């Protein structure tokens, strides 16, 4: 593959540090921050390369940003690079989130703190609802394919079936329908 990027390939330490920095500044989703760091600031990837890494990350299971991180690390330094970038991405926020968790447990009996968390939980729920609704507007749902979304929703939210059962039921059929539509 022709690569026209990277004035210089990042070292393991650079991968670790840059991903840590990006992830610590990434509030409400790290992916946009990662794109800016990789494409605009560091120029480790071109726009197209980032889009390619993104589509692979969305294709595979797991959080997109974690998959992006592994791909970028692997691209420059193989397994070691993937590990360094992954460790950078996770370890800063891991410490932050557990520290906040400890504070929360310690003070949750105070009325102000429990009130604060009631407020935060309600807003966080709203974000998930918005994400679901935003994705429902997808072009790919403007057809009979929407039935698979409905069945999945009912199976998970109403019938409370185990995810694996639902995925085994809906995913193969949905993918088969998508194949059939393309032909």
């Amino acid at each position, binding site marked *: 593959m022709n690569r026209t990027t990277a004035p210089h390939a990042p070292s393991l330490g650079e991968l670790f540090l840059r991903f840590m920095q990006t992830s610590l500044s990434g509030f409400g989703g790290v992916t946009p921050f990662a794109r800016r760091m990789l494409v605009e600031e560091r120029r480790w990837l071109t726009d197209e390369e980032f889009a390619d890494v993104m589509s692979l990350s969305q294709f595979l299971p797991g959080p997109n940003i*974690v998959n992006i991180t592994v791909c970028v690390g692997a691209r420059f330094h193989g397994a070691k690079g993937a590990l360094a970038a992954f460790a950078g991405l996770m370890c800063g926020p891991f410490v932050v989130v557990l520290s906040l968790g400890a504070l929360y447990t310690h003070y949750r009996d105070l009325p102000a703190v429990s009130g604060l968390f*009631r407020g935060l939980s309600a807003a966080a729920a709203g974000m998930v609802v918005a994400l679901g609704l935003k*994705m429902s507007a997808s072009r790919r749902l403007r057809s009979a394919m929407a039935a698979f979304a409905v069945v999945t929703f009912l199976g998970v939210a109403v019938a409370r079936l185990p995810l694996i059962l639902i995925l085994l039921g809906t995913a193969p059929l949905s993918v088969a329908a998508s194949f059939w539509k393309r032909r």
Partner: protein
Amino acid sequence: MSDPALAQLAVDFSVLSLLAVGGAVTVLPEMYRSVVDVHGWMSGAQFAELFALAQASPGPNVLVVSLIGWKVAGLAGALVATLAISGPSCILTFVVSRIWQRFREAPWRMAVQDGLVPVTVGLMLAGGYLITLSADHSIAAFAVTAVTAAAVLATRIHPLWFFAAAALLGVGGLV
């Protein structure tokens, strides 16, 4: 700290890692089912609070599993849960990234990706539904959820502002 709980976390979250089609939010309902309904490690409201904490913190949202692990089995639990949810999907990504060029343009790859969209949407809506029911116990809380959702959809205001406003309302005893 209990070893059976650690082992259970490791197994449950490794499986979830590979089922997380479309990202961490899609396995939220299954985490809820496992942590609250099946094992009874915490209440639904606590689950919603840990999720909120992870959302309001910097970093990937998947870190909610670190908090769940920590709540269940301390620091070891946090490490085990985080590595379990990340490990399998990371290894898969690493392997596939090496051979991606061979099939990224393949029609079957796009058909699979398109076909998973409805399932992902159903899972996300279910996650929103379940987390709303566990988080909200008053009319005011439902209103905060609804306004946040509407504002995130309709405006470009950064979500952190909504968290801040909702937190203030909560501290003021209004939610």
